[in-house]
């Protein structure tokens, strides 16, 4: 290093000052932009589901006896004035099935694909512009829809199958609810929907005593929903007011009378040859309870749902139509 490389005192002080100012500016900027609270979760507007119940008609209930699901379904709607009484031209229909398990339909743990396809066809015959079938089985939705036969049946009949995806969930709070508060619910498939049909099999349930149309809405919940099993009757009560369907269809042709909700053996099923269609889910489930030979005391969620205003357990008060499918 020669003498020409030496820095002058003046130059050194100027550079030191520049470095000091730069450091001060960076530190000051850091302090200025410091956020002691850290990043906040994105603010999402809590949503609610519209009331899909059909206004202007009195509550209706039809109990059909017969072993053939398709015939029973047709007979039920014929007795109730036709599917046109519930589905209008241009309606957009969402069918919530029970596709919770990747099991074959004959084990009775899921909605039977024959009922799905026939309901879809009847909706389209009534002029529905769009019919979709959905559920949120936590366990591999693709397998559940395919192995239960629900997916192929729905598609062949002309419906769209909607599998859960993260974008379909939004936080939802049920008014005056204790459990469903800001909880992720699969609301995406309901967008633009004008009619909702719930469709479930009659099953024994280890925790709730029975799984029918009211418990079926549990499938819309996201997150670690299994925690609700600790207070199963309350969660079913809250589900009963979270969603008010246009109508529900309860399949009691082969009821799972024990070892529910999964079953597994054909010996867990008993032929009860009954299909229930109605606009009051509580009344429909009350009929289903009789197929399981369960009393109201054994299924507290029914009276809790009635107390919440979701329907009546006294299904006879609706003057149900009783028929036998030919």
């Amino acid at each position, binding site marked *: 290093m020669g003498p020409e490389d030496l820095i002058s005192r003046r130059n050194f002080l100027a550079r030191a000052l520049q470095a000091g100012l730069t450091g001060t500016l960076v530190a000051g900027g850091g302090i200025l932009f410091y956020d002691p609270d850290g990043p906040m979760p994105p603010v999402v507007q809590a949503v609610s589901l519209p009331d899909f119940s059909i206004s202007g008609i009195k509550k209706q209930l039809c109990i059909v006896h017969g072993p053939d699901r398709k015939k029973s379904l047709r007979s039920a709607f014929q007795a109730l004035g036709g599917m046109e009484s519930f589905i209008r031209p241009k309606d957009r229909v969402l069918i919530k099935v029970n596709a*919770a*398990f*990747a*099991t*074959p339909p*004959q*084990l009775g743990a899921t909605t039977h694909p024959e009922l799905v396809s026939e309901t879809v066809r009847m909706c389209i015959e009534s002029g529905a512009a769009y019919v979709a079938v959905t559920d949120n089985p*936590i*366990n*591999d939705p693709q*397998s559940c829809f395919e192995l239960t036969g629900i997916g192929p049946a729905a598609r062949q009949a002309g419906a769209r199958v909607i599998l859960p995806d993260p974008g379909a969930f939004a936080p939802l709070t049920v008014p005056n609810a204790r459990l469903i508060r800001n909880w992720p619910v699969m609301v995406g498939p309901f967008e633009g929907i004008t009619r909702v049909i719930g469709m479930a099999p009659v099953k024994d*349930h*280890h*925790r*709730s005593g029975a*799984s029918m149309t009211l418990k079926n809405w549990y499938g819309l919940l996201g997150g670690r929903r*299994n925690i609700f*099993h600790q207070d*199963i009757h309350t969660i079913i009560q809250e589900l009963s007011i979270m969603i008010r369907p246009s109508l529900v269809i309860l399949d009691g042709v082969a009821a799972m009378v*024990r*070892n*529910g*909700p*999964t079953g*597994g*053996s*054909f*010996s*867990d099923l008993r032929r009860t040859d009954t299909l229930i269609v109605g606009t009051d889910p509580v009344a429909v489930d009350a009929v289903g309870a009789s197929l399981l030979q369960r009393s109201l005391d054994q299924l507290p969620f029914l009276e809790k749902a009635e107390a919440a205003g979701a329907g009546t357990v006294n299904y006879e008060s609706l003057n149900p139509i009783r028929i036998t499918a030919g």
Partner: protein
Amino acid sequence: MHPLDLKPSRAVNSSIIAGIAVLTALAFLGVWIGYRQLHFNPAVLAMRTELPGTVPALQADSLIFRIPETLVAAAPERYDAASLSDKINGKAELYLAAGFRSLTARRFSPIKLPDQWVEAFFYEMRDASAAFSVYSMQRREGAAPSDVAGFSRETSNALFLAHGAYYVELIASDVQPPLQEAARNLARAFVASYRVSEKQITETEIFPDAYRTSDEIKLLSAPVFGCECLDRIYTAFYEIQGERMTAFLARQDSAKSARNLALQYREFLLRYGARELELNLDVPGVHVLKIFDVLEAVFTRGPYLAGVHEASNEDRLKILVRTLYQGIPETGNGA
């Protein structure tokens, strides 16, 4: 001197050599990374096909991988206590209460019926009694005993067994002989591969055959008969002169523990309004109590707690208490 005539110095030469060495090393590294990307370890690929993937592989899964005439139809699914309800929904509580460790589930298809399947559920429980508990709690109507394991039975489309610390369900998608045969083959392969020590559960063999209505023996978890103190109690049904009663039995760590538990149960009944009766019975230390018009009896023999639940007649209760007492080995070592 013309600049082009300058010879590269030794330092420049060294820099060039070092640069070439670094570039060569980077080139080798790039080729190696590319090769590894194109040739994944099969184990990595296998892991990626698993579903929740939070539970380590079970011995059960590897044991039954190759069964004659059976194809593997799907990747294994594994569940722990936190994720069990993802698979079996509301029935998870039954397993969790009994001592659940993990579940491996997998579907298999017979070669003859590739569109059908048998789904195998291997529940790893805390111990043999926990596995027996969930087995015994899920009786299937009309199930017939099976010879594939000590505790096994089958229905037209399913086979259930408890073997060591495992409870196994093999569920066929339909009622067809090749499916049922595949289920039996899976069960036999599992039992043959997973050895357990004999006589892990002795209580089931102690219940006397006399007056017993069926081979149905259950292992119940607390609270048994409404009493929190009674946990892991074996029960069997008896019928004497038309009256159906429940006998119960549970081995404790010692005779003293058994006596303490008998006293706790007696106190529980007294607390809820029971009245103790003095009956002439040849069973030492037996307590007979009347509560809500039914009779309860509890006694011990060695390390065994035993008794009769919900009898309505004193004479019939006495018969069952004596029969049960005589069936318990004096040594308390089990049958």
